């Protein structure tokens, strides 16, 4: 046809055919077009396939950082500013913006220095009683910045590091300050003036507590309360002191929690002693736990929240403890988990400020980073040649300081964004703080800085399976039986109407099913619970009774209705039974359930939520029926006619043919239909979101709700910080969903293709 179009142009009296040049040009043009089309389509096609593949790649790339281990790399090293020879380093800190470090010496000097280069910024001397010598040092939890020096005359001086931030010329200027919340004058801890050997300190909005072991082994705890006179501005300090029951041996360290209930003392024999100081006038000794039998607790510290204690021992163990409440409401300090063992005594443990992570150093100079909730060891490498004496981690976990015995300081950058997520924290039971045993919990939202996020995917996965299970329980029998009947028994004319009617359901937005389930079905089921069960039981019975009566009817009447119209005959029966059950429901409730079946269930120990698995099962079953029905119906319908006709010709009844011939042939197709339906039920979001209470619980109770992976993503993803662990765990949930449905669907699809081949052979 291209040649035809060329004709008028060459019609100038000479040949009517195009010249060789023209043909050549035309050919080239056509080849060019052909190539453009080929490569254009190729590029677009491959592009689309790649774009779809991108979904996997991208989700994977967002999830991967969760499982990366931490990285620590030393940036610079210099002598610790402010620590002179003969002095020793007590403590190291980093400010919130990673620009300033602070060193605390045993002589009471606090020196601030630029982390970059180690330049000296300023020094402060702690006020010290004239004739006393420093004998102990303690810090409160790192976020408070509070610390205390104890002296050999029974006094302590308490200070707090603070940073004043100003913005001259839009540049951040940080000025370190030393504050004295109780005044510069040292506080008297022991009136008798005995030397303080070991000091423990805690500061929170509930007050300030200090505990000490004195030179004669007496243990005492004191609370300080600061009162400021509004008129004069004078500060008075109120003190309450009480002596703690003693134990055999000497204390090494003392920890106090920030709610002032628990006090722990580690001794030199490997025990941690547990005191209840909730009532300060009557402190009680609760017992001791043995951390190690071949050494002593060389270092212990609180984690963020001051509930968990991490104890490091002289034989290299790192163990976590926290108090667990037993049935008698008594707290027991309980061993929770162990972390990777070190080869040498533990020298120092530094907790992260906002997370349940901590850094451990040992005498061989090894550094380890661990996370308590995840039970994870995320980093382990030697940092110094000699013992690692002090460690500091910045409040944002991006920078760490390591000091060794020779007063050399290493400044190292730390990249450890997601220590709290590990395989075990996601999929195994985790013993969370405050709970009496390891559990599966999803509770991601932070209730404050001290909150321990609980991100176990188990309740969500179980919820997903629970929802899918009840949906399938409802949908599978209806859809499969319906498919068999429609494909095999129903008259073709009726089938032409019924099949599209059910298939239209597939296009119905699930948000509509969800809202009906939540706003109409849930209250309906709650008020008419006996009706629901009545329908389940009575419906098949009514159908059978009607069928039997029908078979007893005289021949002439029965033959009036053609074969394959049973479904239509049953419709009035079904509607009647449904109506009757609903109407009778209140009377049944009065007769058998004292007026309310819901109340009766609650009284008998079944939790009943209005939006529960039963409602979800029905609503989601609704959404799944068309999927299963459509594919299964095709499978049954495509069973070759000569097979069934042969069976019928040999004298089998219609039903015997179905059981003996149709079902075996179509069973794989029906199985694949069920799998497809399952895949859809697993991923459904809106119905679950609207028809359940979305509480992540771990049971299969049909009267309780659930939270599924998909609903959880919909609820939480928009409210979480981009790039946080929570954000990435939600991406992981999406990836799990994707993988789950993709696998199920692929399997179903492969089965279907196999089946098609088999039919071809029959």
């Amino acid at each position, binding site marked *: 046809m291209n040649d035809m179009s060329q004709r008028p142009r060459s019609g100038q009296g000479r040949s009517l055919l195009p010249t060789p040049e023209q043909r050549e040009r035309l050919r080239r043009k056509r080849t060019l077009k052909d190539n453009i089309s080929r490569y254009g389509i190729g590029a677009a096609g491959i592009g689309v396939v790649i774009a779809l593949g991108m979904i996997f790649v991208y989700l994977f790339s967002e999830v991967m950082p969760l499982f990366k281990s931490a990285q620590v790399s030393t940036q610079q090293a210099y002598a610790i500013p402010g620590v002179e020879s003969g002095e020793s380093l007590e403590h190291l800190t980093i400010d919130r913006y990673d620009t300033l470090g602070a060193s605390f010496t045993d002589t009471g000097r606090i020196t601030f220095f630029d982390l970059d280069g180690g330049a000296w910024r300023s020094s402060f001397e702690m006020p010290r009683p004239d004739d006393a010598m420093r004998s102990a040092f303690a810090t409160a939890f790192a976020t408070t910045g509070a610390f205390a020096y104890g002296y050999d005359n029974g006094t302590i001086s308490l200070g707090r590091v603070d940073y004043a931030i100003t913005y001259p010329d839009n540049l951040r200027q940080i000025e370190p300050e030393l504050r004295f919340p109780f005044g510069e004058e040292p506080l008297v801890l022991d009136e008798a003036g005995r030397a303080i050997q070991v000091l423990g300190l805690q500061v929170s909005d509930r007050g300030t507590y200090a505990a000490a072991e004195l030179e004669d082994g007496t243990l005492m705890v004191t609370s300080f309360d600061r009162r400021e006179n509004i008129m004069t501005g004078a500060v008075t300090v109120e003190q309450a002191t009480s002596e703690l029951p003693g134990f055999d041996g000497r204390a090494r360290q003392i920890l106090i929690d920030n709610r002032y209930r628990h006090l722990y003392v580690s001794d030199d024999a490997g025990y941690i002693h547990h005191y209840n100081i909730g009532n300060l006038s009557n402190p009680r000794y609760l017992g001791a736990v043995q951390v190690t039998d071949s050494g002593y607790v060389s270092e212990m510290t609180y984690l963020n929240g001051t509930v968990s204690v991490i104890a490091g021992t002289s034989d290299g163990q790192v163990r976590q403890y926290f108090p667990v409440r037993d049935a008698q409401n008594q707290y027991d300090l309980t061993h929770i988990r162990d972390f990777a063992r070190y080869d040498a005594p533990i020298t120092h443990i530094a907790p992260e400020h906002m997370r349940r992570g901590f850094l451990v150093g040992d005498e061989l100079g090894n550094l380890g980073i661990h996370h308590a909730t995840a039970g994870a060891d995320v980093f382990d490498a030697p940092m110094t040649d000699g013992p690692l004496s002090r460690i500091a981690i910045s409040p944002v976990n991006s920078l760490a300081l390591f000091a060794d015995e020779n007063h050399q300081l290493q400044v190292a950058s730390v990249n450890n964004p997601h220590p709290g997520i590990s395989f075990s924290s996601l999929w195994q039971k985790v013993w969370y703080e405050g709970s009496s045993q390891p559990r599966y919990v999803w509770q991601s939202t932070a209730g404050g800085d001290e909150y321990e996020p609980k991100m176990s995917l188990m309740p969500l996965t179980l919820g997903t399976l629970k929802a899918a299970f009840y949906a399938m329980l409802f949908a599978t029998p209806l859809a499969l039986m319906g498919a068999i009947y429609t494909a095999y028994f129903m008259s073709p004319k009726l089938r032409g109407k019924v099949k599209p009617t059910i298939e239209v359901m597939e296009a119905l937005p699930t948000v509509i099913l969800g809202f009906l389930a939540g706003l109409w079905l849930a209250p309906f089921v709650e008020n008419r619970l006996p009706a629901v069960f009545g329908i389940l039981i009575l419906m098949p019975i009514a*159908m059978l009774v009607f069928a039997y009566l029908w078979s007893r009817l005289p021949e002439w009447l029965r033959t009036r209705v053609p074969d394959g119209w049973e479904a239509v005959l049953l419709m009035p029966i079904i509607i009647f039974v449904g109506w009757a059950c609903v109407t009778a429901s209140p009377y049944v409730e009065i007769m058998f359930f004292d*007026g309310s079946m819901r109340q009766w269930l609650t009284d008998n120990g079944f939790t009943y939520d209005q939006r529960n698995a039963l409602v979800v099962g029905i609503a989601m079953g609704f959404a799944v029926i068309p999927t299963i029905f459509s594919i299964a119906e095709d499978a049954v319908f495509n069973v070759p006619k000569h097979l069934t006709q042969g069976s019928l010709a040999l004298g089998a009844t219609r039903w015997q043919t179905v059981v003996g011939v149709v079902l075996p042939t179509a069973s794989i197709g029906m199985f694949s239909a069920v799998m497809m339906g399952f895949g859809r039920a697993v991923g459904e979001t809106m119905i679950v979101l609207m028809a359940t209470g979305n509480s992540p619980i771990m049971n299969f109770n049909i009267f309780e709700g659930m939270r599924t992976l998909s609903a959880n993503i919909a609820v939480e993803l928009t409210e979480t910080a981009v790039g946080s662990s929570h954000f990435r765990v939600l991406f992981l949930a999406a990836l799990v969903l994707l993988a789950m449905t993709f696998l199920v669907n692929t399997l179903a699809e492969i089965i279907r293709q196999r089946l098609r081949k088999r039919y071809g052979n029959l």
Partner: protein
Amino acid sequence: MKLWWKSGAPWVWLNAGAVAVSVIMVLGLIGLIAVRGLSHFYPSEIVEFQVGDPELGLGRMVMGEHVRSETIPVPVARDAGIAVPPELDSDDLVVRHLIKQGNRDVTGQDFAWYAELQMSEWQAPPDAMRLERREWGDFYGYALRVLEGGEVVAEGEGLWEELQSRVERANTLFRELRRIERNDVGVISAEMEELRLRERALQRDPDIEPDALWAQLDQIQDRQAILDQEFQTLRGEIDILRRELYRDTLVATVTGGQEVQIRIGDIVRAVQPNSLSLTAKAVEYVQQFWAFVSGEPREANTAGGIFPAIFGTVTMVLLMSMIVSPFGVLAAIYLREYATQGPLLRLIRISVYNLAGVPSIVYGVFGLGFFIYTMGGSIDQLFYSERLPSPTFGSPALIWASLTLALLTLPVVIVSTEEGLARIPSSVRHGSLALGATKSETLWKVVVPLATPAMMTGMILAIARAAGEVAPLMLVGVVKLAPTLPVDSTFPFIHLERQIMHLGFHIYDVGFQSPNVEAARPLVYATALVLVILIIVLNLTAISIRNRLRERYRAASD
């Protein structure tokens, strides 16, 4: 009996029952939505009755619309705080009625349950009226007189006509006010924002000469002054209009006799349903329906119309189909006509097919992470850096919603087109090639036209799926209340970065996030009805187009 049982007939009947149940459920569902949705627009009767303790004599008056009734056992009624007479024992049943009594500003509770035990006969007073208001929900009561600037202008005879004409006038003024606020003020503030951003960009520019900078800043300031002037003029106009709007006041009594003053500017509609004739009711019904479809939502979406949601849904779906159709069709042609058939291609094909079964929320997660945070974030960095840190494209938006849904529906289009291409007999292709046509000529002039029905089907199925999808949209672009439509009269007319309202999300939001569930419920049913109609119509169109085109091309392909 035994024989009957053995023949398997009961099983056949049970299977028949399964079909019957499924069909009844489908029809029942659609019927439920239709009945509930359609009855929302009907001007139902206003009833009036007295409630109180039967022993102490009848108490206060209640007036409103009957919503639904419930039969409950006596213990439940006692739990619910209904004063059940002691002579009824726990085996008896009590009927209670939910009455929409409106007047939220007067009674504080616009829906209340009343037990039938304590009710007088229901009356339907002919002059009872229902006022649809812009605030505080509906009002039920009797009109007393109309005031203009404190003076009585209508009372008794002719009051209703006067009220209607004044409501009409107020509505005209209100529309005018809206128009000025939306368009004129909108244009000015858009330009102001533009100027502010330009100023900011200039000040940040490190390379600019100081003289040029000052010159440009001066220009901007001049323009700002002019705009400010215009804005003040408009403000004056708005003030005048507003004064006019609230000129009149209606004095009405609620049932029981309390007098209430209502500004006529707040009234959207005034109806006396009890005295309407059947024709008038029909007219009222149509008007209500139209107001619902074309109006804007009021009172946290629990009243008014759903036009922005319909508009948002349609815009988003259109944009999506413009993205998905070329790519889906090209990908299908590639897979079927160009790619080398082999195990790898089979794997790809199965994967693509299966992506249709991947949960939609997964696409939403991908859209949020990749489109919004990665792509949108980069676009903001490159082109809208002066607006940072407030995001332009780096937040949920129309374009990302459309792209996400395009990705979601891509497998649908590919599968459908491929099926169409596969159905074309190879003899057609061979014939074309044998006549000397190149592959692309064969493709574009012979094969593709024959496959158009399949492509159209795929497209429409994609649209139907996209229109009903909500879960991914919650992450990538819909909001409960968008202040502006994505298409308007300010440049560049189609605002891809705006968030949209969506019918499906509207259902979720109004039904589940709204503070006043009872008031929202009929609205949700009506919205659901609109969505169902939209989707069923789309699906039926798909089927009929497929059939028609199949007929047209049947001659060609045989």
